[in-house]
C-alpha cells in the first residue's frame, strides 16, 4: 500500500472523528428551525447542500454531481467533471482523448460503462464505447450528473455493466434569460458560450445555446509538439411545455462539428505521423410525460442520433432511431411497479481505411427490449425489496436476460443499508463481429521476423463472438453522521465470464505476405472486488470537505493473447470548497491515482505498459464581482509541469497532461 493511500485512510479517519465532534456544531440547524417566523423570513438562504446527495433512497451506489459542483470544479469538459464522482476512473490520454470507466477495464473505448445525455444513449456500438471527443454539453446548463456504480442493465439495458452515467440538463424554465461565458488561458486558448432562455407561451419555456472552444496541443517531454490541438463548435435548443394538466412535452436538439489533429503511432502505418480527425453530428430528442394520477404515469421518448467520424483509424457514419415507453403505477400500499418496452434501429456505414476494414461495410441492426421492476415494501419504513428483469434481443447474440434483486433496510432514521445481486451483459461491437484490424507488419529478415517474407499480423472479428457476462454482488451503507456530515460506503464483488480474449488462427499466404490472423474469442474470465467511500463534511458554514476513496483489485485469467487493462488499485480525491469572504469562492482539489496498466498496442513483449502513480491539484478562485458577473481563475494540474495518465489502445499518441491556467467571465443578462 502506498504512502498516499495511507495518508488518505488517515484523512478518512480524521473526517469521521471530526464530523463526530461537529455533533455539537450541528446544533445550529436546531436553532434555526426554532426561530420565529419573522426571523426565518429574514435569513439569507444558501441553496441545498451537497451532503444530501449521497443520502438517497436507492438500493444502489449512486452519487450525484450537481450544478454547483460542476461550476466550482473548474472542469471544462464532461470527462473532467466525472473526476468528481467516487469510483470513476478518468484518465486523460491526450488533448482530445480520455479513458473513462467504473470498476476497471479502462481504455479510450472502455466498453462496460453506459453513458446517456438527457435519456439519449451516447454509447457507440462501433467498438463498444463512448467517443468522448464528440460528447459535449453547455456545462452551465447541466442540472446534475447521476453516476451509478454497478450494473444498471435492468433499467437501462445492455452495456450498463459496471456503471451508468446520466447527464441531465436543466428544465428550460430554469435557464431563463441570457448567459455569456468567455475565457482563455494556456491550454484552453479560448472558449465562449452564449445561452438565451425565454417564455414562449403560458407554461412553455425554451432556450437556445451556442458554444465553441479552441484547445492548444500538448507538449511532449522533449518540447516537441504533440500536434493534437482541437477546435469545436456546438449549438442546440430545448423546449419544455405543460401541454395539458396531465401532460408535459420536452423537445431538444444539438448539432456539433469538431476539427482535431492527432499524432498516430501505428506499427502498420509506419513512423508516427500527424493526421486530422473530423467529427460531426446532430440529434433530436422528444419526451412526452403523462400523469394518470399522482401515483401513475407513463412516458414516451423518441430520439434520433446522427454521427460521423473521419480519421485515419476509423471513417464511418451512424444513424440511430430509438423509441422507449415506460409506465409506473402503485399496486396497493406495498407495490410500486415500473415497466417498459423499447425499440432501437441503427444503420452504419464504414469506409475502408488502411488500418481497419469492416465487412459488410454497411449494416442495419435492431434491438428490442422489455423490462419490469417492482419495489415492494416488506415492513413499512424499515425494509423493502426490489425485483426486476429485462429481456432484450439484439442482432449479434439474440436474447439476453438481465435481472436484479435488491434489498433496502433503514435500521433507523438517517441510516440506510442495502444489498444487491444483478446480472448484466456487454454486447459485441461491430468490430468484434465484422472487423479486420491490421495490427503490425513485421519486415522480412528483421529481428522480429527471420522469414524471407513480411508477416502481417491482423486482429479479426468473430461472428460467433458472445456477450461478456457479469454477475455482481454489492453491499452498501449510508449514514448521516450528523446533519453536517455523511458517509457512503459500498463494497462489491464482480464475477465476469466470456470476457474478450483471442487466439491465433492458421497463417495464410497472400500477395507476397504471410498473414497471421488473431481472432477474438470469449475465453477470458475473472473477477474484481473493491470498496468505494464518499464522505462529505460541512466543517463550517463556509467550508466543506469532500473526500472520496476507491479501492479496486482485478484478477483476469486466460489473457495470453489479449491483455486487458488493469485500473489503479487506489484512487483518492479530496476537495475543499470555501467561501472565505463574502462573494468569493475558493476551491482546492487534490487527486491521487495509483499506478495502472494500460494496453499498449506498440509494445512487442508485454501487451500492457505501466502508468506511474501521480498526485495533482487544481485550484479555482471566483469572485462575484457584481450581482450578474462572476470572474474566475482556475489552475489545473498545478503540482507538476506534466504527468502521464494513460495510453491509447487505438494508436493515438499519449502526452503528459500539462499544468495549465485559464480565466473566465460569466455574465447573466
Amino acid at each position: 500500500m502506498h504512502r498516499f493511500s495511507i495518508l488518505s485512510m488517515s484523512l478518512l479517519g480524521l473526517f469521521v472523528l471530526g464530523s463526530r465532534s461537529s455533533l455539537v456544531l450541528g446544533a445550529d440547524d436546531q436553532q434555526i428551525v426554532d426561530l420565529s417566523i419573522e426571523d426565518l423570513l429574514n435569513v439569507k438562504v444558501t441553496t441545498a447542500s451537497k451532503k444530501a446527495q449521497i443520502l438517497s433512497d436507492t438500493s444502489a451506489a449512486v452519487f450525484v454531481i450537481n450544478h454547483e459542483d460542476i461550476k466550482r470544479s473548474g472542469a471544462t469538459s464532461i470527462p473532467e467533471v466525472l473526476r468528481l464522482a467516487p469510483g470513476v476512473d478518468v484518465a486523460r490520454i491526450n488533448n482530445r482523448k480520455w479513458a473513462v470507466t467504473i470498476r476497471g477495464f479502462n481504455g479510450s473505448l472502455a466498453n462496460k460503462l453506459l453513458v446517456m445525455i438527457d435519456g439519449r444513449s451516447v454509447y457507440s456500438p462501433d467498438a463498444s464505447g463512448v467517443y468522448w471527443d464528440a460528447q459535449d454539453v453547455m456545462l452551465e446548463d447541466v442540472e446534475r450528473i447521476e453516476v451509478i456504480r454497478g450494473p444498471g442493465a435492468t433499467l437501462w439495458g445492455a452495456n450498463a455493466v459496471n456503471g451508468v452515467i446520466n447527464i441531465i440538463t436543466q428544465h428550460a424554465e430554469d435557464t431563463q434569460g441570457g448567459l455569456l461565458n468567455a475565457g482563455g488561458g494556456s491550454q484552453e486558448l479560448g472558449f465562449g458560450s452564449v445561452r438565451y432562455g425565454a417564455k414562449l407561451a403560458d407554461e412553455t419555456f425554451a432556450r437556445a445555446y451556442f458554444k465553441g472552444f479552441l484547445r492548444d496541443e500538448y507538449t511532449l517531454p522533449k518540447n516537441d509538439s504533440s500536434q493534437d490541438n482541437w477546435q469545436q463548435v456546438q449549438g442546440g435548443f430545448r423546449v419544455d411545455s405543460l401541454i395539458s394538466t396531465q401532460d408535459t412535452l420536452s423537445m431538444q436538439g444539438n448539432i456539433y462539428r469538431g476539427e482535431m489533429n492527432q499524432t498516430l503511432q501505428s506499427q502498420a502505418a509506419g513512423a508516427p505521423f500527424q493526421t486530422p480527425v473530423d467529427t460531426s453530428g446532430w440529434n433530436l430528442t422528444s419526451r412526452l410525460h403523462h400523469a394518470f394520477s399522482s401515483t401513475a404515469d407513463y412516458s414516451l421518448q423518441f430520439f434520433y442520433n446522427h454521427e460521423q467520424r473521419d480519421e485515419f483509424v476509423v471513417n464511418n457514419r451512424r444513424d440511430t432511431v430509438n423509441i422507449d415507453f415506460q409506465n409506473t403505477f402503485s399496486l396497493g400500499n406495498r407495490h410500486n411497479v415500473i415497466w417498459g418496452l423499447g425499440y432501437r434501429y441503427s444503420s452504419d456505414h464504414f469506409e475502408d481505411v488502411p488500418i481497419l476494414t469492416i465487412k459488410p461495410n454497411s449494416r442495419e441492426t435492431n434491438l428490442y427490449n422489455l423490462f419490469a421492476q417492482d419495489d415492494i415494501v416488506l415492513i413499512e419504513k424499515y425494509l423493502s425489496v426490489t425485483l426486476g428483469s429485462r429481456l432484450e434481443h439484439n442482432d449479434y447474440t439474440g436474447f439476453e436476460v438481465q435481472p436484479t434483486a435488491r434489498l433496502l433496510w433503514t435500521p433507523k432514521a438517517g441510516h440506510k443499508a442495502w444489498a444487491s445481486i444483478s446480472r448484466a451483459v456487454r454486447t459485441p461491437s461491430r468490430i468484434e463481429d465484422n472487423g479486420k484490424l491490421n495490427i503490425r507488419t513485421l519486415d522480412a529478415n528483421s529481428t522480429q521476423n527471420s522469414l524471407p517474407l513480411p508477416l502481417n499480423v491482423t486482429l479479426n472479428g468473430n461472428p460467433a463472438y458472445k456477450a461478456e457476462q457479469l454477475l455482481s454482488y454489492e453491499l452498501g451503507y449510508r449514514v448521516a453522521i450528523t446533519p453536517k456530515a455523511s458517509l457512503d460506503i459500498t463494497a462489491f464483488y464482480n464475477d465476469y465470464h466470456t470476457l474478450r480474449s483471442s487466439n491465433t488462427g492458421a497463417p495464410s499466404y497472400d500477395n507476397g505476405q504471410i498473414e497471421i490472423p488473431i481472432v477474438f474469442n470469449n475465453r477470458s474470465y475473472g473477477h474484481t472486488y473493491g470498496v468505494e467511500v464518499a464522505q462529505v463534511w460541512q466543517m463550517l458554514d463556509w467550508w466543506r470537505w469532500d473526500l472520496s476513496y476507491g479501492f479496486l483489485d482485478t484478477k483476469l485469467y486466460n489473457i495470453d493473447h489479449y491483455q486487458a487493462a488493469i485500473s489503479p488499485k487506489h484512487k483518492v480525491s479530496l476537495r475543499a470548497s470555501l467561501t472565505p469572504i463574502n462573494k468569493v469562492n475558493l476551491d482546492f482539489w487534490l487527486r491521487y491515482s495509483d499506478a495502472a496498466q494500460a494496453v499498449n498496442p506498440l509494445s512487442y513483449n508485454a501487451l500492457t505498459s505501466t502508468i506511474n502513480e501521480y498526485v495533482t491539484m487544481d485550484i479555482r478562485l471566483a469572485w462575484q464581482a457584481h450581482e450578474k458577473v462572476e470572474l474566475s481563475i482556475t489552475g489545473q494540474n498545478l503540482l507538476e509541469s506534466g504527468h502521464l495518465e494513460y495510453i491509447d489502445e487505438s494508436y493515438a499518441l499519449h502526452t503528459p497532461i500539462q499544468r495549465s491556467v485559464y480565466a473566465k467571465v460569466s455574465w447573466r443578462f
Partner: protein
Amino acid sequence: MSRLNKSTLKSPLRLLCLVVLYALWGSVHADSAQEFTVRAGLALNFARFTEWPDTVLKDIDTTINLCLLGNPMVEEAFASIHGKTVGNRTLQVQLLAHSSNLNDCHILYVSDLDKNKIAVLLDEIVNLPILTIGEDDFFIQRGGAVSLEILNDKISIKINLKTAKQNGLTISARVLKLATVIQ
C-alpha cells in the same frame, strides 16, 4: 511516491495551509442558513399557526403529520423538526414514497415534483383538509394553499386564502400579515 517531487507540492499546499490558519483564527460569522433548514422552520410555524377542523385533528390526537413528497433529499433537512411540540401535540415527519397514503397527512410539503404531477395531485386532494405547501407560483395557481418562494436570497410566503378556507383550514393573522395573500 519517489516520482513526486516534494518541492512541486509546496506552493499550492502552502496556500491551503494559509486558508486553514485563516479558518482557525478568524471567526467569519455566517448570517445565512441552508435553504431547506429554513423551509423546515417555516413548515413548523405553519403547523403551529394553522387550525384544522375538529373532525380532522381531534382532541385525543397526539400528533400532527407532515408528509413530504417529491425530492427525497428534503427528508434530511426536515428531520430537524421531527418530534417538535406543537401545542400539546408532536410533529411527525414522514417521506411518502408515493402519494398513496395522503389521508393521514395534515401538512403536505411538495418539493421538486414535475408540473403535471403537481397539477394531478392537487386535483386529487382538492377540498381535503390538508395544508399543502409548495415552492412556486404554479403550485398556488393550481390550487395549492401555500408557496415558499426564494426572492432576493430570502424566502417569501404566498398564501391562497380561498384554497385554505375551502379546505376548512384557518391560518393565523400573524402569518397572514407576513405573507402575500391571494384571495
